[in-house]
Each structure stands twice: as C-alpha cells, then as structure tokens.
C-alpha cells in the first residue's frame, strides 16, 4: 500500500501534520514534531525518486477517479528531484528553526509558525506532484498564503516584515490571478484541466484565446519565480522573514515555481505549440538582464540578507537562461542549478541566521572580524559564497560549467560566446559582493559585543549543508546525469518533442 | 675597493678578501685563467677536437667565446646604465610614502622579522 501511494504521501503527510502541529503547545514539541514529519517526508520522497528513476513516471488517481475526469498526481524524474530537494531543505531547516525561532518569533506563535511551515511544505510538494493544472494553482496558493504569514512573523525582529509581507501578498495574488485567468482561458478552449489532456487538446489549436492564456500563465508564473522585472517582492520578503523561513523559501519556493514553469512550457504547451519561442526569447533576455541588474544592486547593499536575496534574483537569471536554450543540455543545466543553488543558498542563509542568533544583526557591520569569533559559521558562509561564485570543487562550479557547456551547444539568437562571457562577467560581480562580505569577516577587526554561542541544533544543519555543497562539487556525475535524464524525460516523453508532432 | 663616497673602515676590520694582496692576486688570477682556457681552446682547435656549427666569424674561431664574454659584458654595463635616464624614478614613485613604510608584522607568533638594522638578536 505504501509503495502505491508514494506520489501522494509526501504531500498529504505535512498537510495532515499541520493542524496537529497547531494543536501542540508552544514549545520545542511543535518544532520536533514538524522535524519528524519532514524527515519522514524526505524518506518517502527519496523512495519516490528511486522508484521513478528505476521504473519511470508514476501516476496516482485521487479518489480513484481516472485520468481526464478526476485529479491525478503524476511524478516524473524532474518532479521527483524537486520533491526530494524540497523535502531535504525542510528536514534541514525545521530542526534549525527550533532554536532559531525562539530568537526570532513571538513565543506564543511557535506552534502556528511550525504549522504554517508545514503547510508551505505541503503546498510546494503538491505543486510538484500534481498532474492537474488547476491543482497547481491551488497548491501554489496554499503555499503562498502561508508564506505571507511566515514572512509577517518576522515582525518581532523588524516591523518592516509587515510591509514586506503585504507587498508580497499583493503581488503574489496578482501573479496567482494572472495564472488562474490563463488557466481559465485554456479551460474555455479545451474543457480540461489535466495537463496531459491539455497538451493533447491544445495540439494544433492556435487562436487568440490560447495565446492570451499562454501570456497570462507566463506572466503569473514569472512573478512567482521572481523573473527579473517581476522580482520586487522577493528582496524585502527574504530580508525581513525569520532566518529559517528565508533559508527554506530561498531554496524551494522559487525553485518550485521554476519547476511549474518547466511543466507548463514542456508538458502543457510543448514544442509544437506555435509560439513557445516567445517564452524562450523572454527568458533569454530577462535572464541576462536579471543576472547583471540584481548582482549590481547586491554589491551596494549593507544588509547581508538583502545582498543574498538580490543574488537569488541573479541566480534565477541563470536558471532561466538554461531553460531559454530549449535544449536537453540547457534544461538539465537549469535543473542542476536549481539543486545546487538551493543547497548553497540554504547554506548561506543558515549561516546568516546563526550570525543573527549570535549577534542580533544582519548588517554588514556586524560581520566585522567574524572569522575570529565564529570560525565555523564563517567557514560555512565562505563555502556557500565560493559556491555562489562558482569556484571549482563546489556545486556552483558544476552548475556554471554545465550551463556554459549547454550554451556552447545551443543555437541562439545571441552568439554563444557572448553569453558565456556574460556568465563569466556576472560571476565576477558575485566575487564582488561575496568578496565584500568575506573581507569584512576575515580581515577586519572585530568590534562590539562577544557573540552568543550558537546551539548545536543550528550548527549541525549548517555544516551538513556546507558539506553537501562541497560534495556536489566533487561528485557531480550523479546529479548531472540524473538531471540530464530528467530533462530528456521532460522534453521527450514529457511530451515536449514528442506528442502529436 | 673603496672610494671617496665610502669612508674607509679600520684596517683590522678588513677580511682577507679586502687586503691589497688578495686584490692583486685577483688581477693575476682572472685574466690568467681566461688566457689558459683560451690557449686550451686554440690547442683543441688545432687538433680538430672542436665541433663548430658556424663559420670562422663565430665558433670556429677558438677565442670567439672570450671575445663574446668580454664584449657582451662591457656592452651590457656601458650601454645598460643609460637606461636609467629613461626609467629611473625616486623610490616612492608609485606608492608614495607607503613604499618606504616598514613591513607590518602580521603574525605575532613569529618575531624574527622585526629585527632592525644591527640590533642584537633577542
């Protein structure tokens, strides 16, 4: 029974656990319970990943109703990778949050905090697992709504969290609305919401309604994944949310939106959809601009979390760039970067959270001479930073390498060499903003009060993530081949190249 | 080999290499050795034990190497010093006063660096 239900279990488990968590007392119990759930979900997702890698995509009919009529869950390799990633991030950030939340959350909200955390988790898993277009919207909103709450909970530390959450709420809702309008238009034309069914019925159909729906979905999802001009909710939300929330969101929510985008581009629309190139041109241009724009802004920020948040926007540019190549290599590169970036960003944000725990500030000035006072945290931060730059032997290098290789192997509007040079140049920008922090940490003299010791519960996840960053840089073959396989599935049997053409 | 800008040191502070005798010895020894090897080369050339690759103007000529050594060296020194007219600048040209700043001792574990001129060790 367990094996048959694998696609749905990691989704409903946190969903069921959330109300239970809400009923628990406001102490460590809630966090421990959430952690336990996350770990079980991780095991389940890993089993799912294994199954999918061995036997191929799995399907699950909700309520026993078969495919076009009922809601089905469909997990292929790309989905399984992202699900495992999300579950991994949850199982790392939840235990971290137990200690960290005591510092950053109003104590009476602790169990609500973890309940919300679990709902975000469930929502993100649901977006990935489902094979129903409308269900994507539902889960996207489940996760977004609870995210707004989580961001707002940062208000204990900084009141600006409230405005950040409000901005996020408004924009997120606009994005969701656009998305659902797009879905509505597609439904009007095809009369179905099942993704594969949509694909079949959309084949060869080309009218204004479909095109409008396409544009709406593109924009809506673009907002959710913080594509360049639509990214403005992200920096404030990441900056003012509590540290574990930031770590979790930065590593998962935009990634899942990227996944949804991939799903819609390649599964729902597919290559025989006449104007799919619009999206690729869009991504190419906006990705490139985003890479530079956000990195440049990051260089001049004083708040470390803000720097990292802008860097996230820049990194999303890399992923969009990979997708825009519209080749197996490109999509694989995007997926590799999704995983690597999630790991390194979590590493960085966990380290930042530890610094906040110890010193109570995110300002760059608080990082002075941290290398002498908090050597472990500094080391972890630097590993994450090096990976962000793309130094060899870290995961980031692998992403960039795969991306550069994909660029060379693609025929694009812009010459490949120019793109490669731009990738290198924007990496140099990353050197600038990470270098600035590293300089402060290592070479300046410590000032101010002595940092509070960071509890083990926070150090261990942090160090684990740093180790994983390096591991991904050394043993790159597994991940790269997995992602390549996933990209192949997405583009072929995932109906990209295949289907009716 | 002292001259006007460099005040003489006391005679008892001279080492053997600074005595007039040693200097006189060098004046015989260096050209003497040079001539000895030149002669040796001439003998080898006469005996056809050399393996020249180029013509008489070059290494077929047994004293060619001596001439090259002498002329090259003189050329380098006599011509090279005029380069100073073009490229020489005061010591603080690039970095200003920083250039002559003392080295910063970056590691207090190691104190050997900070010894200044003539100070006794420890």
């Amino acid at each position, binding site marked *: 029974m367990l094996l048959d239900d694998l696609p749905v279990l990691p989704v409903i488990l946190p969903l069921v656990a959330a109300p239970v968590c809400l009923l628990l007392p406001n102490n460590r119990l809630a966090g421990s319970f959430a952690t336990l759930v996350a770990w079980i979900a991780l095991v389940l997702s890993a089993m799912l990943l294994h199954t999918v890698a061995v036997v191929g995509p799995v399907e699950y009919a909700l309520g026993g109703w078969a495919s076009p009529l009922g809601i089905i869950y469909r997990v292929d390799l790309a989905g399984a990778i992202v699900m495992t990633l999300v579950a991994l991030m949850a199982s790392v950030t939840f235990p971290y949050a137990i200690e960290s939340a005591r510092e950053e959350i109003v104590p009476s909200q602790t169990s609500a905090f973890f309940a919300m955390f679990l709902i975000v988790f469930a929502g993100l898993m649901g977006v990935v697992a489902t094979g129903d277009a409308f269900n994507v919207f539902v889960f996207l909103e489940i996760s977004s709504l609870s995210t707004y709450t989580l961001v707002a909970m940062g208000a204990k530390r900084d009141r600006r969290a409230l405005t950040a959450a409000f901005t996020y709420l408004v924009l997120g809702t606009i994005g969701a609305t*656009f998305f659902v309008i797009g879905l509505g238009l597609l439904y009007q034309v095809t009369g179905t919401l099942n993704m594969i069914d949509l694909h079949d019925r959309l084949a060869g159909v080309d009218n*204004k309604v479909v095109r409008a729906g396409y544009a709406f979905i593109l924009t809506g999802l673009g907002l959710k994944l913080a594509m360049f*001009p639509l990214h403005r909710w992200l920096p404030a939300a990441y900056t003012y949310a509590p540290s574990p929330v930031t770590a979790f969101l930065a590593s998962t929510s935009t990634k899942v939106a990227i996944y949804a985008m991939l799903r819609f581009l390649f599964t729902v629309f597919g290559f025989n959809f006449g104007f799919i190139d619009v999206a690729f041109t869009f991504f190419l241009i906006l990705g490139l601009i985003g890479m530079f724009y956000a990195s440049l802004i990051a260089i001049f920020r004083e708040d470390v979390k803000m720097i990292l948040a802008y860097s996230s926007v820049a990194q999303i540019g890399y992923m969009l760039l990979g997708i825009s190549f519209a080749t197996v290599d490109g999509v694989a590169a995007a997926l590799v970067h999704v995983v690597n970036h999630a790991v390194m960003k979590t590493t960085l944000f966990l380290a930042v959270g530890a610094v906040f725990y110890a010193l109570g500030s995110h300002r760059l000035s608080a990082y002075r001479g941290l290398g002498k006072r908090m050597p472990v945290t500094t080391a972890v931060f630097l590993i994450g930073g090096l990976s962000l730059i793309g130094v*060899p032997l870290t995961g980031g290098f692998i992403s960039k390498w795969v991306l550069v290789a994909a660029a*060379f192997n693609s025929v694009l509007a812009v010459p490949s060499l120019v793109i490669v040079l731009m990738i290198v140049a924007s990496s140099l920008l990353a050197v600038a903003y990470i270098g600035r922090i590293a300089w402060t940490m290592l070479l300046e003299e410590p000032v101010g009060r002595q940092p509070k010791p960071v509890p083990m519960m926070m150090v261990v996840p942090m160090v684990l993530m740093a180790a994983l960053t390096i591991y991904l840089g050394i043993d790159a*073959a597994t991940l790269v081949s997995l992602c390549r396989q996933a990209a192949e599935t997405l583009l072929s049997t995932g109906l990209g190249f295949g289907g009716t053409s | 080999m002292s001259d006007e800008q460099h005040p003489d*040191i006391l005679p008892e502070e001279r080492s053997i290499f600074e005595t007039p005798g040693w200097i006189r010895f060098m004046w015989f020894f260096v050209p003497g050795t*040079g001539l000895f090897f030149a002669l040796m080369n001439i003998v080898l050339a006469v005996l056809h034990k050399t393996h020249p690759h180029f013509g008489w103007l070059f290494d077929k000529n047994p004293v060619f190497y001596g001439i090259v050594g002498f002329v090259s060296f003189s050329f380098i020194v006599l011509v090279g010093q005029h380069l100073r007219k073009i490229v020489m600048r005061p010591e603080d040209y690039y*970095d200003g006063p920083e250039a002559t700043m003392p080295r910063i001792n970056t590691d207090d574990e190691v104190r050997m660096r900070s010894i200044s001129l003539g100070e006794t060790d420890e």
Partner: protein
Amino acid sequence: MIPFLPAETNPAIILMVAGVLMVFFGPRGRGIIGVIAVALGFLQMYSLGVGPMGDAQMYGITEVAGYEFIPLRLDKLSVVFATIFHIAALVNVIYGWQGATKVEASMGIVYAGSAIGGALAGDLLTLFVFWEIAAISSVFIIWAGGGHAAFKAGMRYLVIQVMSGLLLLAGIALHLVRGGSSEFGAFKLVGEAGVDPVAALILFAFGIKACFPILHTWLQDSYPKASGVGAVMLSAFTTKLAIYALARGFAGTDILIPIGATMTVFPVFFALIENDLRKVLAYSLNNQLGFMVCAIGIGTPLAINGAAAHAFVHITYKALLFMGMGAVLLRTGTTKATDLGGLHKSMPWTTAFTIVGAMSISAFPLFSGFVAKSMITLAAAEEHMLLAWLVLLFASAGVLEHSGIKIPYFAFFAHDRFAPSLRNGAPRPKEAPLSMLIAMGLAAFLCLLVGFYPPVLYGLLPYETDYHAYTLEHVATQMQLLMFAIFAFMLLVRFKLYPPEVRSVNLDVDWFWRVPGRKALMAAVQMTADVWHAIWAALRDITGQVLSGIGAVHRPGGLLARYWTVGYTALTTAAVLAVALLLAFLS
C-alpha cells in the same frame, strides 16, 4: 605503495591537505607536517610508476557528461617537474621552519601541491583547477610580506593570474566545443588555416604565467614584496608550471624562439640598474625562463631535455639565491644594494652558499647550471639558429653580470657597511639561523651534486640522452667566456665605469597600468560617479516635485513611497503581461 592511502591518491592532494592541517599547529608542528607530507607525496608519486614519453601511466580516469577527467598522468616530462616541485617544497619547509608565518607555511604547501597537481594533470580542466589554486594560494604568500605595498602588489598579481586562468578556461571551453580531446596534449598554433585562435588563447594564458615579455611585470612587481621566506616559495612554482605547460602543449612552436630570446635579453638591462637585490633576482628569473621558452620553441628532444633540465636546476639555484637574500633580509632588514656590503665577514656560510648558487646560475663547470644550459645552447647550434644562439651567448654573459657577480658582490663584499667603527660600535649582523643554513646547504648540495655527477639529472629527463656536458671543448669555451667577462667587470670597476647603485625604482611595462592606467580608471570611476550623481540629483528633483504634488493630495513621506512601490510593481507586472500578450499575438 603507502599502506594507509588509497592506491590512486594524488600527491597534490596529500600536500594540500597537509597545508590545511598546518593551520592548526605551531611552527614546529607545521614543519614536521610539511616534511612528512612532502615525503609521502614523493613516495606516492614514485609508487604510481612512471611511463615513458607518449605512454604515460594514467590514474583515476572518470568521465562526467562526456568529459574525461585524468587527474594523474605520469610520464617522464610530468614526473621530472613534479619531482623538482617536491624537492622545492621540502627546501621551503626547512627554510621556513622558524621564520614562516602560519599563512606562509600552510599556503606554501598548498601552493606546492597545486603546482605538483598541475604538472601531473592529464586533462585540461584538472590543469585549470590547479592553475587557479596556484594563483590563489600564492597571493596569500605575497600578502604575508606585510605592508601596503605588498598588499597592492598582491592585488595586481591576483588580477593578472586570474586573468590567465580565465583565458585558459575560455580556451579550454572553445577547444572542447570544437570537439577537441579533453586530454592535455600538444596544440598546433599554426595550422593549414593560419593561426588557430583557440591555441593562441591558451598560449597567451600560459604566456602570462611564463612571463612572456610585456606580460612579465607581475613577477618583478610582486616577488620582492613577499617576505624572505615567501619569495623562496614563490620563485619555484608558478613560472615552472607554466614552462611545463608550454613544454607539453607547445613544444616546437617557432614563435617561442624569438619570444624566449627576447626574454633572455631585456631583463639583463633592468637587472643591471636595479637596486633591490631580490628584484634583481626576479629579473634574473625572467631571463632564465627565456632560456627554457627558447628551448621549448626549438622543440628537438635535446632542446626539450634542456628545458626540463634547466627548469630542474634552475629551481634549486634560484631558490638558493633567494634563500641567501632572505637570510640577508632577515638579519639586516633590507636587500637594497645601497645598504649592504661586507656581510661575508659575519655571515660566511650564507656567503658561501650564495656563491654556490651564483656560480651555478652563471654555469661554471662543476655547477649545475653548466650541465643544463649547455644543452640549450647546443640545441640551438645544432639547429643552426645563429641568431638565437648568439642571443643566448649574450644572455649568458648577462646572467653572469646580474646573478653571478652583482648579487654576491654587492651583498657580501663591495663596501663594508657593517663595520663596528662605522656604526658606533654596533655589532655586525649575525649568521643566518640554523634551519635556513640547512635549507641552503641542501640546495647547494643539489647544485654541486648535479654539477659533479650529471647522470643523476639525465636519468630523469623526458628523452633518452647520450649527451655529455664535460667535454674539454665545452669546459674550455664556457670558462673562456666567463673569465673574460669577469675580467671585463674588474676593469670596469677599476676605471669607475661600473654604474653605482642608486636608491630608485625603475619603470617597467607595468608603469602603463600603475600610472596612466590607474589614472584612467580613477577618472572613469570619478566620471561615472559624477554622471550618476548628476542624473540621480536630477531624478530626485523631478520625482521630488512630482511626489510633493501627489503628496499634497495624499499623504506625505514614507507611506506614499511604500504604497507607490507596490503599485508601481503591480504596474510592472501589467507591463510585462502586455509585452507577453503582444509578443504572443504578433509572433
């Protein structure tokens, strides 16, 4: 085979791990770890076995995404370089036993490891990785020299080195995309279709590290600014790794002959007028690299043997000379010729060892330089390259001038500036500490060993050789050249034609970016800032007026700005949607 290590462990990794470990120990612990690591790495390398040229022993081959990694490739050419790198690392550890700071000691070993890794790398990406690690680890050694000048020089050094790495990476990427093999083999610079841009790019990257003329100034700029210990570490690895890369990738490329010849000549003049003796050594290093580059350009087996042999002996005697100067720096606080002289009276051992190094570099018979350098000149002669041959002879006289005579003469003899009578009774500087003397002795021993018994070296060389350095002809011609050159020196000094030492810096090519380049950069930055400020001020005025207009209607200050942000972003979203719609409808 070393029992507790995996069979295919890279010696480079052993050294790098040791380098990291050193951070946690005191000076003595660091020294012990260093010696053990070098010994382990060396044993490990030889336990892997050495293949002849063209039939290398390869280990650890893995394929990732169609790219073949070969972390270890041992053939004669790579092993001779890796061997001398190990020896240099050992000498460095001993030399810095007491004097090396933590950064220098650990980074020095990491740096040595990266050079070894680079030499043993069988594929291009592995080479690139070590290439970059070498750049990054060595810059810490420069910075450890202390002071603002060292910091700035280190930054300049880092920029140039990283640029070399990026060019290399670009070259590799283009090479791979073109379908080239991932194995690091020979490149063809000039093919039927003219100059190959990819090979040129890679050659340029190598050329930066090998100090090609005009690209050379990072060396003279940065090495003298490191500490006494640091300069010794620096002198061995980066440039010789580049020489190895050239020998592997561009043997027999004609363009290297004029480049190498130029490299042997121009530093001679700069060295003549330079006051800082360690900078003299840096120029001398450049000049010696010229011999090797020239030999690689000639490309015959004898020439490649010569280049490898010269790299081997050069590392020992150049390290020896730098060690001598380092000892002088330690005891007197300076290496400026204007402040030195007469040190042979109180530092006899340092003097003796430095003279051994000086005689080696000048290629006196019975010293190691003679054994190697004569191979290169002979290779040029055998190929009947008259001009190159003449230039090399000329440069040999130059080497004698700056390294053979100038260094020992001005540091240890010349005018005695440390006589107690001149310095109000202050005692003379003491002899160098024991650890330094041991290191110098070791290097001097190697110089003499190779000089007396060349087969030690010849056995290591890439190609089989029946070359004999000690024929009467070689000895006679070389001694003739040297003795007459020394005679010229004596005459020039006697008649006061030898230029006096003057406190100064001498401009080199780096002037272009240190002075006008810097000014241009600063001006550009200033201009951008000014323009930006102007635009910003104008924008602020305009928006201020607009906002105060709206603010009169709505609310003032922060609230307005806040809501405006959200609304504005929503507007952006709408605009993006509009663009997407337009595109979708029009396409």
